[in-house]
Every structure is written in C-alpha cells, then in structure tokens.
C-alpha cells in the first residue's frame, strides 16, 4: 500500500447563517457533515456532487483555507490541529490548490511574473539571482512558451487557458505533494479543457502528485480519476474505484447523476434509460432525516426517512450508503422502468 498523504476523519465544517437583519440566528449551514477520506501518494481522488453538496468546502479545508468545526485532518500522519506554526508552513507548501475561476485567481494588479515569483520568494525556494530563470522554467513546464513573452502580462492580457496554466504553475512552484483542484476546467471552453486536463495528467505522472479533484463533470472525472467519492448534502453516499462506481453504481443518487449527464452522442443518449429526479436539493441548513437523499429518491421506502443508512462494502473498497445497495438493480427496474446507463 502506498503512503497515505492526507487523511480526513469525520470532518464537519459548519458556517453560521447570516440572515441580514435578524440579529440572532443559531442555524448553521452544514457544508461538510461527517466526511472521511484518505488520499494516497500520486493518486487522483475525485469528489463529485452538485452545487451546495460541500465539495468545495471539503477541498478548502484540506488545503488549510477553512477550519474544521470538528473532526481531524492528518498530513503524513500528523494531526494538523497539533502542528507548530513552523510545521504548518511546511504543510502549506505541501498542499496547494488550483481554483475554478482562473480570472479571479489572479490579482488584477500583478503580472504573471509577480504571481509566480511570490511563492518562490516567500518560501525561499531559489536564490534571488535565479528567480527569473526559475519562473521561466515553471512557465515552460506548464506550456507557456516562449516564457519571456508572458512575464509582464496581467490577467486581462491572457486567455482563459493561459490563466489556468499560470495558476497551475503557481501551485507547482513550491513542489507540493498534493494539489486540490476545484473544478479546474469548468470555466473553460471545451476546446481548451483538454489542454489543461492533459497538462494536469502530465504533471501528475512526472512529479507523482496526488490530486483531490473536485468536479461535477462525470466525463472528466471518469478519465482522470483513480477513485471517486460521490457526495450529497455534505456526506459521502458512495465511493470506490472509478471503474467500479461508473460501471456498477451502488447508490440511486449515483445512478441518477449518470442518467442525467448529457452524452454527446444522439444514438446513445436517446436510447438510454433515464432517472429524472424530482424536486430540488434540500437546504444544507436543515437536511432531511434518515437518508438525506430520501426526499428525491425514486425507490425510497419508509425506512429511508427514519434510519441513517450504514455503509455497505463491496469489492475493491467500493462502498455505498443505501439501505438497498445490494438490491438496487432489480428495484430500480421494478420502480421506474429505468436503470443505470449501461453501455
């Protein structure tokens, strides 16, 4: 077994509800509500879910940008809460982040050079005399060539793809072992997405970096990730290897996601079975009792609203939190005349 870099145990991250004018409001947004995960060396772990499911908060917490309400985060076996400030600094370097909006992730008053030089100088990675060369090397590494042409550009002089390459160069500059990538391609045109995904795969293979890859795009996840976690309302509903989860989903929510995802192929998309979920995602302030998915689940039974489903384990670490995880195939067909996309 390869080394576990980041381990998260029963993580909860709650935010107070700000209601504008009512002065006292004790309610909390339960963004992340009891998630555990382990990210191993050079592994790509994808976190998949819809907006408001807590996947971004999870990523920010792992990167140290948000603090846990409860639960623990370990890095290389050390509890983050007990780190000294010096150790915390090292941790900062080890876990970097690539953000969703490459435009917003560049300071409007900085040039590309200043943006990459900042982490290098702060962390004293190279001597001052080598600074320009190191920046150029990083530019080259992410495919910004010729590097000299980019040094003095500011964000409005760059295309979306170039900005995201810069963002990746910045995260790579401190030689991290983990990168949290929060929807790194969803703001880009599809003609550009492939460039960034190839770059990310190349860097991962060359430098053995582990990715916590946060996305709602199943097709991207399918191609990039080793393992997948499906998250709904702050909790994991299913996890396993990418192959396992995609070819043999064990949770009705995963099935619905797969069935709802558009396929750019008219023959396939028109012939597949559909599960169209009714209703909207409930509020994370006051999540449903029992199984959180029961309000939208096409196969929900009375037990689902009363008991929290335990994880059921299948092969290769594939687990699902559904009361009917092992009877899903037959039940789905019975109830909805619909099954998972099985081509």
């Amino acid at each position, binding site marked *: 077994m390869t080394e576990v870099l980041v381990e998260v145990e029963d993580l909860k991250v709650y935010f107070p509800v700000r209601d504008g*004018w009512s002065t006292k409001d004790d309610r909390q947004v339960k963004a992340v509500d009891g998630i555990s995960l382990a990210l191993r060396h050079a592994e790509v772990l994808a976190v998949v879910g819809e907006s408001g499911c807590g996947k971004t908060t999870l990523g920010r917490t792992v990167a140290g940008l948000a603090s846990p309400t409860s639960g623990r985060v370990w890095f290389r076996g050390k509890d983050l809460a007990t780190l000294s400030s010096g150790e915390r600094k090292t941790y900062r370097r080890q876990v970097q982040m690539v953000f969703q909006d490459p435009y917003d992730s560049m300071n409007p008053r900085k040039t590309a050079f200043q943006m990459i030089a900042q982490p290098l100088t702060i962390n004293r990675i190279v001597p001052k005399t080598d600074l320009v060369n190191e920046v150029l090397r990083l530019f080259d590494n992410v495919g910004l060539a010729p590097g000299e042409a980019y040094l003095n550009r500011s964000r409005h002089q760059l295309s979306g793809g170039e900005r995201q390459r810069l963002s990746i160069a910045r995260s790579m500059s401190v030689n991290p072992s983990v990168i949290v990538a929060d929807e790194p391609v969803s703001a880009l045109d599809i003609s550009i997405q492939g460039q960034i995904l190839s770059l990310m795969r190349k860097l991962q293979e060359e430098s053995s970096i582990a990715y916590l890859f946060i996305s709602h795009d199943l097709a991207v996840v399918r191609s990039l990730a080793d393992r997948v976690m499906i998250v709904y309302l702050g909790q994991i509903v299913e996890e396993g290897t990418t192959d396992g989860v995609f070819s043999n989903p064990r949770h009705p929510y995963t099935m619905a996601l797969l069935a709802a995802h558009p396929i750019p192929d008219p023959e396939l998309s028109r012939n597949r079975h559909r599960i169209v979920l009714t209703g909207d995602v409930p509020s994370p302030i006051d999540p449903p009792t029992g199984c959180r998915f029961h309000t939208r689940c096409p196969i929900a039974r009375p037990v689902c609203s009363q008991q929290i489903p335990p994880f059921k384990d299948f092969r290769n670490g594939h687990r699902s939190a559904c009361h009917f995880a092992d009877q899903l195939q037959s039940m789905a067909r019975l109830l909805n005349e619909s099954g998972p996309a099985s081509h």
Partner: protein
Amino acid sequence: MHLRRYVMGRLLQAVPLIFVVMTVNFILIQSAPGDPIHLLIGEGSASEELIELTRAEFGLDKPLHVQFVSYVKNVLQLNLGYSLRYRQDVFDLILSRIPASLLLMGTAFVVSSVAGILLGLYAGTRKDSLADRAAVVLSILGYSMPVFFLGLLLLTVFSLNLGWFPAQGMYNIRNPQEGWGLVKDVAHHLVLPVITYSAFQLALIFRVTRVKMQQVMKEDYITTARAKGVGEGRVVFRHAVPNTLLPIVTILGLNLEWLLAGSVLTETVFAWPGLGRLMFDAVSARDFPLLMGLFIVISSFVIIVNLCTDVIYRAIDPRVRFA
C-alpha cells in the same frame, strides 16, 4: 409575520442609541474646559443661588457616576436645563420652535424628493441625451453650492434688491394676518428658504435616482419584460421604477443628517424661527444648556427617523418581508 418581531427588535436597538447620545453629551459636558456648571446654566451673570440650585439638581458636587445617573434622570424627565438668553426652560423653548422647523423641512423635503426623483427617473431612461447631460451638470453645481451662500445670493437678489419676497422670518410681524391671509403670508415667506434648502437635496436625490435608474434599466429582468412583449412605457413604470425607488427610501433616511445641517444654515440666513435659528442663537450667546438640549433632541429625532425608514424599507421590500 416577521415584520412585527423586526420592529420590536429595532425599537429595542434605538433605546441604547439614545442612551449613547446622552452619554456622549455627558462626556462632552464633563471634558469641556471650564466648570461644567456653566454648560448647564450658561456663562454670565447667573445668581449664586441659581448656580447652587442647579449644582444640587444635577448633583455636580457628587462623584461622576452619581452625576451621570442624575443627569440621565433629568434628561429622561425632559429636564434639559434653563436657557439664560431666553429666560425659559430649554425643553419648552425647543418645543415651541419645532413647528416652524417642521414646516420648512417638510416642504423642502417634499419638493426636493418629488422633483429629484422625477428628474432622476427621466434622465435615467435617457442616458447621454442633452437633457440628461444638462441635468447632470446642474446637479453637480447644486451639491457643490454652500447652502448659506445660495441663501445669501437669493436673499440679496430677490428680496433686498427686487423686493419680491420678504427677507426675514416666517410671517409679517408688523401686519399680522389671520386665516387664509396668514397661510398666504407664510407661504410667501417660505419660498426663498425652501428653494435654498431644497437645492442641495434635490441635486443629491437626482443623482442617486438617475444612477440607480440607469442600473435598473440594464438589469436582466427588464430584458425579460421586453421579451414577453411589454411596451416601453410599462417596462419603465411597472418594472423599473419600483426597483429604483426602493433603495431611494434608505438613501432619503441616511441623508437626513444633511437635511438637518441645511436647516440650521438656511434658518440662520432667513431668520426662520425654527430649531436651526435657535441653535445659531445658542452658539452666538454661548447658551450651552440650550445648545446641549438641542443636540439631544435633534439626535433623538434622527434616531427615530432612521428607525422609521428602516422599518418602511423592510415593510415594502418583499425580499425582506418574506425572508
């Protein structure tokens, strides 16, 4: 409904604010140079007897915290001291001047709000037209103009030289009128002060309304309205105007401060017998009890009006009403 709870909450918030104003007042009295007794009965030839009486009444011979308690008690009982210049109880004096101020302020408020909003809405839908640009230039002149200077100009030209309007006061003292005649007389006296006083407000309200209207006309829901076939007139009046006016309520409330400052200066120029003129007299005569009393009354007034605009805003904005 949440609104009632909200109003109650806001009312409770106003109490500590008024208390803070009293505290500020007390600290000012204590920290000002000289014997605080003079701030309560004024400098000048107060009799020893009166000084001792006041000293005892306000507990000035006692420790600070005791003084503070008795000060607050006095204020809460509306005992704001005694004005030496007018030889009258400060609170009664202030009370007697309120109607004149309200008349001037109210008229100016209505004039400047109505005119400012209408002009702003008009200009806001005609961005960069000639009328729009002219109005913008006029408005920037308007809110750069010192109120008292405008007042003096109008006074000199229309009253002293042309003689169209009376120069001073609220009504003709030499030839007192009654009934309808009095109304006409007061209205005649009101013209110049109201113009003076409204100019700045009008310019400000115009600017805010115009910018807001321009923003609203660019909103997506305006596109939706047009896309479903709503005519341009109805787009403006049904879809844009309410969204423009809603935030203006708050702005009007927040500008009360300037409205009041304008009132002091306007009333001073035109010798209008209101609170502003009273304040000028208090300053001139170093009548500190009167000055401090005015400060408390005016501050409380501002707090209450702010509270009202806030409540009105909550009541008319469905986003908050149904939050």
